[in-house]
């Protein structure tokens, strides 16, 4: 083998080695991109439930997102209300309100109707963190207070103050207190219309759920 041929072979080998190195770096970059994309998507998505519900943050009551079709026959039967919820159960009336706990804890108050009802809490980017059914209602109302950890500490401290002055809390009875993992999120209310004739009632029950920020 001539020295010249050897030099060419050496250079080829070096270049192939560089290509292999570049490919390895590319694969590591790909793994990092993959992980970053998956982790960041819930925070960047503009079409997810949180983003779609953002306009409901100012509403005092739950806003209807999906509803069962009203009862009726033939051509008189109205078409089902449009919804963006995928895999929506057509027997369920679904309402939601978005919240931001910056101003204070959120009070969710739902009247206990004759239909099966659930209230679930969802944190932005983290999914559901709490759910309760109408069985948790006390004296005909389901009262939930959603607070960050600091706000909950303040609430507990205030309760202790009230106890100290020997004065029972006026309306604190039966509140379910829930710690929210993050400031932003949304409340979802589902009411089951077991029969098509209950569709109107289910809608009304969902819309009568109030979500109000109660500054401390």
């Amino acid at each position, binding site marked *: 083998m001539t020295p010249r041929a050897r030099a060419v072979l050496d250079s080829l080998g070096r270049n192939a080695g560089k290509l292999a190195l570049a490919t390895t770096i590319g694969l590591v970059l*790909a793994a*990092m991109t993959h992980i970053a*994309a998956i982790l960041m998507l819930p925070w960047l998505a503009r079409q997810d439930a949180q983003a779609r519900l953002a306009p409901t943050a100012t509403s005092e009551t739950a806003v209807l997102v999906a509803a069962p079709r009203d009862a009726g026959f033939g051509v008189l039967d109205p078409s089902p209300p449009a919804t963006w919820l995928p895999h929506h159960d057509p027997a369920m009336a679904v309402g939601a309100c978005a919240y931001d706990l910056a101003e204070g804890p959120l009070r969710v108050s739902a009247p206990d109707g004759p239909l099966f009802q659930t209230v679930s809490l969802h944190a932005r980017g983290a999914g*559901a963190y709490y759910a309760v059914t109408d069985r948790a209602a006390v004296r005909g109302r389901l009262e939930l207070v959603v607070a960050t950890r600091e706000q909950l500490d303040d609430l507990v401290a205030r309760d202790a103050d009230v106890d100290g002055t020997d004065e029972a809390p006026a309306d604190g009875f039966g509140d379910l207190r829930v710690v929210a993992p993050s400031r932003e999120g949304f409340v979802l209310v589902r009411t089951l219309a077991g029969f098509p004739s209950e569709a109107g009632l289910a809608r009304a029950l969902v819309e009568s759920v109030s979500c109000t920020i109660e500054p401390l």
Partner: protein
Amino acid sequence: MFEALRRAARNVYHLLLLAWAAALGAGLGLGSALFVLEGEYPFGERRVQAWVAWPSVGSPSSDPYARAIMARSADVPLALGEGIAFRADVDELGRPLDAACSYDVSGETPVARAWTVTLYDPEGRPPETAQRRAGLASAQMLRDEAGGVTIALSPSPRPGNWLQLPGAGRFQVVLRLYDSPVSGALGWLDDGAMPRIVRVSCPGGTTS
């Protein structure tokens, strides 16, 4: 002269290598992420017969892939305390559900305060049929003397509990158990605890 050319070639080669690494990183990374997001929830799948459920998706312990898929689809799955949804897109023998065939869904349903059976097309929308009903709730069920429930899925009317199939294409059945101990995932179900999806007949003349 020759030396300068060689150096230039090497620089170009290095630039190309850098571009190759960057393109590989971005392309493979984003492509694989998109591929995963288009599919089902990758972890925590539980199966009973033909039914599939993802109990952990509606809990605080949902994994990052599930959260990303929820963000992309705007789906809000049932939370752990609300209930659980079982989906089937095959019958009890593993054959894909065909909207031209007739099926019987019958058997036990696990303990729940209420349950619903709903049909969806493969995209997750309720099918629009002449019956104008995509689902039935437990309160509406007609029961036989023994208290059992049979729901007929068929393009043409059937006596008893009947849901109309659109007549062509694939479809899915979703059984939702509301306020059920099953969603707590304390134990898992055995095959007899869930209704069976039995193919009764198909237009081709083949029966089960």
